[in-house]
């Protein structure tokens, strides 16, 4: 049989399927095959098996492979190594499944973190239950890991909180790897959950508050997490409600212990996984002097990521400059405020971000600006004494934001920045230490230092005064800048014909700087209100417009006054007439609509 014939047969076969009755089909085949018996036999064979073929593929409009048990499918994907994984990598992880470690029978791999692999396991005794077992990667000093864990076990046992997954046990495998046993949490990373479920910002903040409460509880029991990051906060659904669970308590400490300079860098990749969540003091002091405020910092990073989809510093950026660069960045570089970083995003990225949060891009930016910015920035302070004192403090400030109450976080003042400058340049400013030296060194020297000190203090006093004045100035400037931004946004909205939203923005404007943009926004909004017969609002917009006109000495003031006239008549206020110096009739003769473009 040749290809051309097969092709023809298939063509006829496919067309014949349109005819439903045998008689019609027969006639069609007769016509098409024109006595070619071989061809007709081919087509008939295809037609004969077609119903069975359909059945075999379980046709339902779309081709479908049969349903497979999720576990089986998941496992086979897990175990098909040839595509992405080397045999070596496979060998190092898969040999655990099915084996027992102590009383725990490993059933299935459920995750892989920076420092190890997590399995779902069944505890055989003393109780039969499902748990999660985390086996730490090779290359650790198992003994010290386990002993560090033992040291904290008492504290860990005291923790009892619905948002904390309990750590139950620790030990060493036969091959000498440390492992930890935890309450099994079936959930997804908090960031993934939020984006996947498209939670809006309010819902995200509510979840975040719960995380803060969990961390607070641990802190009260004397346990610091040290490795708060999205993959350690899983969200499970309980009674239809999302519940965040913090996992891995106590493990970071046991595993990391005292990091030295040599180990810290490998530690980033191997253990901590993401330096983006590491506090400045963790990076600098090698984990020696880390307290609860380090967790506050990481919570700040988490909040940052929940709000903006980004971390204050990208992991890549942190790692590419080496350890010293990383320390410098974490210690000195100020993170961009959430509302600012969001505005730097490309259009499509911003649209996606906003979509994930069920908000419009502009609204999202407006929502972040202000209180949320300052809450995040305060949690992310380089100097830990300036952060929130407790996780609860942070959570409560977020709650205040949700309740529309004033938050305690405030933008860092000029004075504070100056203090930081002084601290960074102690050689110049740090007079105290030098005096002590001078006393020892001799009178002449001390006099010289004293003068130096006095000068420094004078400078400092002066600077403080300036800073105070500057702060007031700054507050005014900030208000103006904010109003200016509102106007810019409103202008954009007006251009998009989204007048309702533009009007809401313009309504918040108090101190306005004259600009053509502001004039046109106010004019458009005033006219819009007038067209809808909302005279009071129209008048408010025009009053502000006239104020701007006056400040700006705008040529448009005459036109604007003419337009404002009919509006003010409608509100019963005749102020405008005195500006014209004429009798009321002057205004009455001008029909309002004539000056309102697009009037019906």
């Amino acid at each position, binding site marked *: 049989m040749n290809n051309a014939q097969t092709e023809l047969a298939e063509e006829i076969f496919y067309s014949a399927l349109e005819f439903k009755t045998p008689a019609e089909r027969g006639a069609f085949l007769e016509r098409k095959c024109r006595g070619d018996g071989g061809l007709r036999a081919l087509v008939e064979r295809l037609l004969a098996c077609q119903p069975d073929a359909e059945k075999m593929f379980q046709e339902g409009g779309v081709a479908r492979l049969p349903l497979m048990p999720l576990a089986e499918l998941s496992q*086979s994907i897990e175990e098909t190594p040839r595509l992405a994984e080397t045999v070596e990598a496979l060998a190092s992880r898969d040999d655990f499944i099915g084996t027992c470690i102590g009383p725990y029978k490993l059933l299935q791999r459920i995750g892989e973190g920076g420092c190890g692999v997590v399995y779902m396991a069944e505890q055989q005794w003393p109780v039969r239950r499902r748990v999660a077992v985390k086996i730490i990667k090779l290359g650790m000093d198992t003994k010290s890991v386990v002993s560090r864990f033992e040291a904290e076990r008492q504290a860990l046992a005291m923790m009892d909180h619905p948002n904390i997954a309990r750590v139950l046990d620790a030990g060493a495998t036969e091959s000498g790897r440390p492992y930890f046993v935890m309450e099994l949490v079936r959930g997804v990373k908090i960031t993934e959950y939020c984006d996947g479920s498209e939670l809006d910002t309010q819902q995200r903040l509510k979840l975040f508050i719960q995380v803060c409460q969990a961390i607070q509880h641990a802190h009260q029991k004397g346990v610091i997490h040290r490795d708060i990051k999205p993959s350690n906060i899983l969200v499970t659904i309980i009674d239809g409600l999302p519940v965040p669970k913090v996992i891995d308590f106590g493990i970071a400490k046991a595993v990391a212990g005292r990091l030295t300079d040599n180990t810290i860098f490998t530690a980033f990749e191997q253990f901590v996984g993401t330096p983006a969540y590491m506090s400045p003091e963790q990076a600098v002091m090698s984990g020696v002097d880390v307290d609860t405020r380090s967790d506050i910092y990481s919570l700040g990073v988490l909040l940052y990521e929940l709000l903006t989809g980004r971390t204050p510093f990208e992991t890549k950026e942190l790692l590419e400059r080496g350890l010293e660069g990383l320390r410098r960045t974490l210690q000195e570089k100020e993170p961009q405020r959430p509302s600012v970083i969001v505005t730097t995003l490309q259009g499509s990225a911003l649209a996606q971000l906003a979509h994930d949060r069920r908000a419009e891009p502009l609204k999202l930016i407006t929502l972040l600006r202000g209180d949320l910015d300052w809450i995040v920035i305060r949690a992310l302070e380089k100097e830990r004494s300036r952060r929130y004192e407790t996780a609860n403090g942070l959570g409560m400030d977020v709650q205040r934001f949700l309740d529309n109450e004033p938050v305690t976080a405030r933008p860092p003042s000029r004075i504070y920045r100056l203090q930081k400058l002084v601290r960074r340049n102690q050689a110049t400013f740090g007079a105290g230490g030098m005096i002590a030296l001078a006393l020892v060194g001799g009178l002449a020297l001390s006099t010289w230092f004293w003068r130096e000190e006095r000068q420094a203090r004078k400078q400092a006093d002066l600077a403080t005064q300036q800073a105070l004045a500057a702060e007031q100035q700054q507050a005014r400037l900030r208000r103006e800048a904010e109003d200016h931004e509102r106007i810019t946004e409103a202008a954009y909205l007006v251009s998009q014909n989204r007048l309702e939203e533009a009007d809401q923005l313009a309504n918040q404007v108090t101190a306005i700087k004259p600009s053509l943009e502001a004039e046109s926004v106010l004019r458009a909004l005033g006219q819009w209100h007038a067209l809808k017969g909302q005279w009071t609002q129209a008048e408010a917009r025009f009053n502000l417009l006239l104020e701007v006109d006056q400040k700006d000495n705008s040529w448009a003031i005459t036109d604007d006054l003419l337009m404002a006239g009919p509006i003010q008549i409608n509100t019963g206020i005749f102020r405008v007439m005195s500006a014209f110096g004429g009798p009321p009739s002057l205004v009455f003769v001008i029909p309002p609509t004539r000056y309102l473009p697009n009037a019906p």
Partner: protein
Amino acid sequence: MSDVTLVLDAISRGDAEAPEKLLPLVYNELRNLAAARMVQESAGHTLQPTALVHEAWLRLVGDQQQNWKGRAYFFAAAAEAMRRILVEHARRKARLKHGGGQERLNIDDLEVPATGPDEQVLLVDEVLAELETSNPERARVVVLKFFGGMTNKEVADTLGMGERSVDRHWVCAKAWLFQKLRTPAQ
């Protein structure tokens, strides 16, 4: 932006080496997705492999990617990945069934109506190899339909052919596959 979207962008910009990078990435995503589903769902849950492919697409790229070329490459890679995964899975199970020996499945011995999903996957895969030499275009349609779970419209967009051609290929392929699987090889 995920790695996959970066690669898809590179593909749409015409980077010749980019498609190579897609398969492992898509595979990894399928793996992560399956693991995540495992944790979320109850143990007895069932899933269509093809649903997983679609979910991977939605999660990684969503409807943002308007570029049909990227979409085509993605689904081709995902269907191929799913094919390999399912074939590997079926082979392993077949080996277990036959006492763990190296015995190959003889397709002639199997009654088609009695085949389970695993056998079917293996059988389709075997005759697909033949189809790939005789009619590569049709073989691609089968991979996308059978392992990728795509609709006719999606396949048409992916392969750049008409929807009717896709349907014809698929209907004929099913009849052909059925014959192949039922009758002993000549």
